[in-house]
C-alpha cells in the first residue's frame, strides 16, 4: 500500500455515555489507534459530539499540528456534519475527516464485548488508512427556492399550508381528490371534546382557498419530481373535471338539470350509503366549490348521446367536455408530503361478515350515519330503515393482527368510544364495545373513557372471533351473533345484536409506494413513510428538503397530525430562511488525459450529466448535474473517472485497513 508521510492524524473515540463504552472497550481501541501509522494523537472522551468534545479537536489540532481527523462514534448519517464542522473550525479542510461508526454498526448490535472491540479496531484502522488519502474539497452553495409544495389536502396538509403561507411564503397545495378536507371532512364529532368536525375544519378549508399565498390545485397529482434540496422541479397533472374551474360558482343548476332525474351512483363521500349523479359536488362545503363530471357514469362519455342538459343549464358556460389532463411545471425548494392513510378494508377480515351481512358497518360508514349532513340526516337506521336496539362495536379490526396489519392504529379505541357515545345518544340502544386493550393516551382521553363507562355502555375485554347469523335459540334468531371470550371473566359469550360496527384501522394509502418512488423517499416495513430519525427527526426524510406530516408517517389522530404539520412547516421555513443549501462535493470528474472516448459511461448516468466532446473526443461530466453515485467510475476501463470522497485509492485503502493489521 502506498503511504503518505505528510498526514498527521488525530484520532478520537467517543464513549457515547454507556452506549458505546458498554460494548466496546474504548480505552483499548484508543491505545491501539495510537500505535497505528500516521497517528499523532489518540484520545477517548465521554461525548465527542458535545461542545467540550469538539473544542478538544480544535485545541489538539493546533498543538499537535494535526491535518487529519478521525472520530469513532455514531453513524455518519447522524453526526458527520458536526465533526466536519469541528474539523473546519480547527483550520483543517473539513474533508480531511473520516467518521467511524462503532455505535449503530457495533456496540448496539453485538453482544460479545471482545468481538465488538475487535471489530471497532478494524474499523478504526480502516478509517485511518483511508483518511491519509483524503483530499481537500469545497462544498458547493446553492440558493434555496422559497416556494413550497404540499402534497395532500387533509387536515395535515391544510394546517401546514396555512402555517407556511402565513409566514409569507408561496405554497402550492396539490390534492388528488376534487376537494380538500380529507377524512376529517367526513367525521361528525371529534374526540374527546365532541366538537363538530365540520365546524372547525371548513373555516380552515376556505382560508386555504382565499389565502393569496396558496395556490390550490385540486383533482391533481404529482407526476414527476426532479432536482435536489432547494431546487426541485415538479410536474403536476390536473385531471379533467370537464368544468372550467375558474368559471364555476357552485350554483348546482347543472346537477338539477342532469338527465338522470334520480341519483344513481354510489356516493364516495357518504361511503356508498347514498347516491349521486354523474355531475356532482362531493359535499356541500367542498373546496373549491366546483362541480365535476364522473366520466365513467356520465351518458355523454359512455354513449355520446346525451342532450347535455347540464351544460345547457350553466349560465356561465363553464362546461368543457373536451378537457384533457393538463401538466404544469412548478419550481419549489421544499416539499411536504401529507398524503394521509387509507382505512383498513373490512372485507379482508371475512370472519366479521362485512359485505355478507348487511347490518355489519364500518366505522366510517357510521360516521356518515350519525352525521347530521349524512345520508340519513343523522338518523341512525339500518339498511331496512329500522332503528337498531343493540349495537356491537368491534375494536382493532385489521389492527394488531399478523394476518392483516400488525400495528395498533392508535385512533380506534378513542373513535369507538366516541361512536359508542354518539350511537347511544342517537338510538339509546344497548351498546357493547369489544376491545383487546383500551388505549386512551391523550389529553382528556382517559376522562372520556370514564364518561363512557358511566353512560351505560358495556365493555367486554375480548377479541371477537366471529360475527354470524347462526342462532342457537329464539333470542338469537334474526340477529347477528357476536362471539367473544369475556377474558376478564374467563367465559365465552354470545351476544346477539342488530348492528355491528367494525372499528377499522389505519393503513398506508394504496398509492403510498408510488408516491414514495416519485419523491425518492423510503417507507418503513409496514408501508408508512420513513422519518429520518424516529425521535430526533420525525418529520424529515432521508431526502433533504422533503418532509412528512400526518398519517402518511404512521397512524395519528387529528391533534397529533396538526402538531406534526406544524413541525414540518417549521422545518421547511427554517430551511428556506437559511437561504442556501450546501451540497456534498462527492461528484465525479473525468481525466481527459486518460479518457479514450469509448462512451460506456454516458448512458449509465441517470442525470445525463456526462456528454461527449466530439472535438476532443473525450467525455465530460457536468459537476453541477452530477449527484455523485459513482456508477460511471466503476465502469471506466481506463480508470479515467474519479469520484471525490470515494476515490479508488481511498476505498482500496479502507479495504486494506479493514483486513490487514
Amino acid at each position, binding site marked *: 500500500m502506498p503511504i503518505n508521510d505528510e498526514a498527521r492524524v488525530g484520532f478520537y473515540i467517543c464513549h457515547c455515555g454507556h452506549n458505546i463504552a458498554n460494548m466496546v472497550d474504548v480505552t483499548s481501541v484508543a491505545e491501539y489507534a495510537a500505535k497505528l501509522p500516521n497517528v499523532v494523537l489518540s484520545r477517548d472522551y465521554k461525548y465527542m459530539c458535545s461542545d467540550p468534545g469538539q473544542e478538544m479537536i480544535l485545541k489538539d489540532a493546533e498543538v499537535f499540528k494535526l491535518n487529519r481527523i478521525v472520530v469513532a462514534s455514531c453513524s455518519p448519517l447522524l453526526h458527520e456534519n458536526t465533526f466536519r464542522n469541528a474539523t473546519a473550525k480547527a483550520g483543517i479542510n473539513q474533508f480531511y475527516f473520516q467518521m467511524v461508526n462503532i455505535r449503530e454498526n457495533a456496540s448496539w448490535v453485538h453482544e460479545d464485548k471482545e468481538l465488538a472491540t475487535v471489530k471497532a479496531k478494524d474499523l478504526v484502522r480502516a478509517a485511518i488508512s483511508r483518511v491519509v488519502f483524503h483530499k481537500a474539497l469545497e462544498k458547493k452553495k446553492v440558493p434555496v427556492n422559497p416556494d413550497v409544495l404540499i402534497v395532500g389536502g387533509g387536515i395535515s396538509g391544510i394546517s401546514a399550508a396555512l402555517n407556511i403561507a402565513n409566514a409569507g411564503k408561496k405554497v402550492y397545495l396539490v390534492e388528488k381528490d376534487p376537494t380538500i378536507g380529507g377524512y376529517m371532512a367526513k367525521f361528525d364529532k371529534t374526540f374527546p371534546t365532541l366538537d363538530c368536525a365540520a365546524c372547525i375544519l371548513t373555516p380552515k378549508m376556505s382560508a386555504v382557498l382565499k389565502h393569496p399565498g396558496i395556490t390550490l390545485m385540486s383533482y391533481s397529482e404529482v407526476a414527476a419530481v426532479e432536482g435536489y434540496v432547494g431546487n426541485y422541479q415538479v410536474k403536476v397533472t390536473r385531471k379533467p373535471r370537464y368544468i372550467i374551474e375558474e368559471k364555476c360558482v357552485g350554483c348546482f343548476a347543472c346537477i338539477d338539470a342532469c338527465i338522470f332525474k334520480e341519483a344513481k351512483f354510489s356516493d364516495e363521500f357518504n361511503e356508498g350509503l347514498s347516491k349521486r349523479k354523474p355531475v356532482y359536488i362531493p359535499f356541500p362545503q367542498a373546496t373549491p366549490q366546483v362541480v365535476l363530471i364522473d366520466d365513467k357514469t356520465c351518458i355523454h362519455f359512455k354513449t355520446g348521446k346525451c342532450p347535455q342538459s347540464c351544460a345547457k343549464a350553466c349560465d356561465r358556460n363553464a362546461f368543457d367536455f373536451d378537457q384533457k389532463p393538463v401538466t404544469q411545471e412548478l419550481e419549489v425548494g421544499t416539499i411536504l408530503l401529507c398524503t394521509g392513510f387509507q382505512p383498513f378494508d373490512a372485507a379482508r377480515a*371475512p370472519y366479521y361478515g362485512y359485505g355478507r351481512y348487511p347490518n355489519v358497518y364500518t366505522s366510517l360508514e357510521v360516521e356518515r350515519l350519525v352525521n347530521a349532513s349524512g345520508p340519513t340526516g343523522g338518523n341512525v337506521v339500518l339498511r331496512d330503515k329500522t332503528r337498531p336496539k343493540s349495537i356491537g362495536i368491534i375494536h382493532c379490526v385489521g389492527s394488531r393482527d399478523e394476518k392483516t396489519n400488525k400495528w395498533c392504529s392508535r385512533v380506534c379505541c378513542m373513535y369507538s368510544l366516541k361512536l359508542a357515545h354518539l350511537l347511544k345518544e342517537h338510538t339509546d340502544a344497548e351498546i357493547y364495545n369489544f376491545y383487546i386493550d383500551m388505549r386512551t393516551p391523550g389529553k382528556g382521553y382517559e376522562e372520556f373513557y370514564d364518561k363512557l363507562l358511566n353512560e351505560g355502555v358495556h365493555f367486554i375485554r375480548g377479541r371477537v372471533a366471529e360475527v*354470524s*347469523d*347462526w342462532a*342457537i335459540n329464539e333470542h338469537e334468531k334474526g340477529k347477528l351473533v357476536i362471539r367473544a371470550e369475556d377474558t376478564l371473566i374467563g367465559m365465552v359469550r354470545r351476544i346477539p345484536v342488530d348492528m355491528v360496527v367494525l372499528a377499522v384501522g389505519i393503513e398506508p394509502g394504496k398509492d403510498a409506494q408510488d408516491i414514495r418512488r416519485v419523491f425518492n423517499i423510503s417507507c418503513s416495513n409496514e408501508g408508512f413513510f420513513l422519518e429520518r430519525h424516529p425521535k430526533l427527526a420525525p418529520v424529515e426524510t432521508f431526502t433533504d428538503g422533503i418532509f412528512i406530516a400526518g398519517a402518511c408517517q404512521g397512524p395519528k389522530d387529528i391533534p397529533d397530525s396538526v402538531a406534526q404539520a406544524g413541525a414540518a412547516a417549521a422545518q421547511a421555513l427554517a430551511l428556506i430562511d437559511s437561504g442556501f443549501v450546501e451540497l456534498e462535493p462527492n461528484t465525479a470528474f473525468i481525466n481527459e488525459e486518460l479518457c479514450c472516448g469509448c462512451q460506456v459511461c454516458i448512458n449509465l448516468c441517470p442525470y445525463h450529466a456526462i456528454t461527449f466532446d466530439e472535438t476532443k473526443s473525450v467525455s465530460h461530466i457536468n459537476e453541477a448535474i452530477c449527484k455523485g453515485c459513482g456508477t460511471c467510475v466503476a465502469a471506466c476501463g481506463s480508470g479515467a473517472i474519479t469520484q471525490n470522497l470515494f476515490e479508488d485509492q481511498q476505498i482500496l485503502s479502507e479495504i486494506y485497513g479493514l483486513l490487514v493489521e
Partner: protein
Amino acid sequence: MKYLYYPGCSLKSSGKLYEISLLAVLKRLGVEVEELENWNCCGATNYMSINESYAIEITARNLAIAERMVGIEMIVPCAACFMGFLKTQKYMESDPVTREKVNDLLNKAGLSYTGKVKIRHPLDVLVNHLGTDALAKTAEMPLKGIKVASYYGCQLIRPYATFDDQWNPHTMDDIARAMGATPVDWPLKSRCCSGSMTSTMTGIGLRMNYVILKEAKSRGADVIITACPLCQFNLECFQGKISRKLKEDVRIPVMYFTQLMGLAMGIPAKQLGLKQMLSPSLVLT
C-alpha cells in the same frame, strides 16, 4: 392424467364408501390413479399427541415412497391424512433439524425424501384442475332442485391447505352447482365435528354433531355432503342416536360429495355404496 393415490386407513374401513365412490367418479372422469405401494397409517391427530417425531417420520415414509414411485402429485382424500401430509411437508421444509433427523431415519430404511411430492385433495383436482365446466358436462342427471349443505369440517381447509378459501370455502359448493344442485349458504361449513370425541367424550361429541345437523336442516338443506371420512361417519352414523337422545329429529342424508357426483353422473347406486348407508337416502325428484 395420472395420480398416485393414498387411501389411508379410514378409506379401507369405515370410510369404504368414500373410496368406492371416489374411484368410480375418477374413473368416469378419466382420471387414472395408482395406489401407493405398501403405505402406512398417517398417524392422524393421535400421533401428534404422543410423539411428534414419530408422527412426522411415518408420514415422511409415505412421501418417500411416493417420490420413489415418481409420483409427483398424490391424491389424498381423507382430511386428516391430507392435513398430516401438508404438516409434515411444512415441518420438513422449514425446520432443518427435523428434516435432517427424518431423512436420517429414512436413509436407514433405504428411502429418501427431497420434497418433490405435491399433495392434492380430490376437491382440488376436480375444481382447480379439471374445472367445474368440465364436471358440469358429465352431469347426465342434473340434481335439479336439490339443496345441498356442503360441510368441509376442519382439517381439510386449515391450517395448511391453499386450494380453497380458508374462511369461506366453496369448492364443494362449486361441485354441487356443477351437478345441477343448489348450494345452501350456512355458517357452520367448517365447524369441527368433534372428531373421535364421539367415541371418547360421547356427550360432547354428539352435541357438536347435533348443532351441525340441526343448522343444515333449518337452512333447508336436503342433503349434507362431506369430504372427510370421520365427519361423514359422525354425522351419518350418530344422527339416529342424537335424534333419540335429544328428542329432536335431526336426521338428514349425509353423503360423500363423490356419492352425490356419482348420482348426477348416472353411476349406478350400488357402485356408489348408496345401498350401504345408514342415514335416510336422498329423495330425487
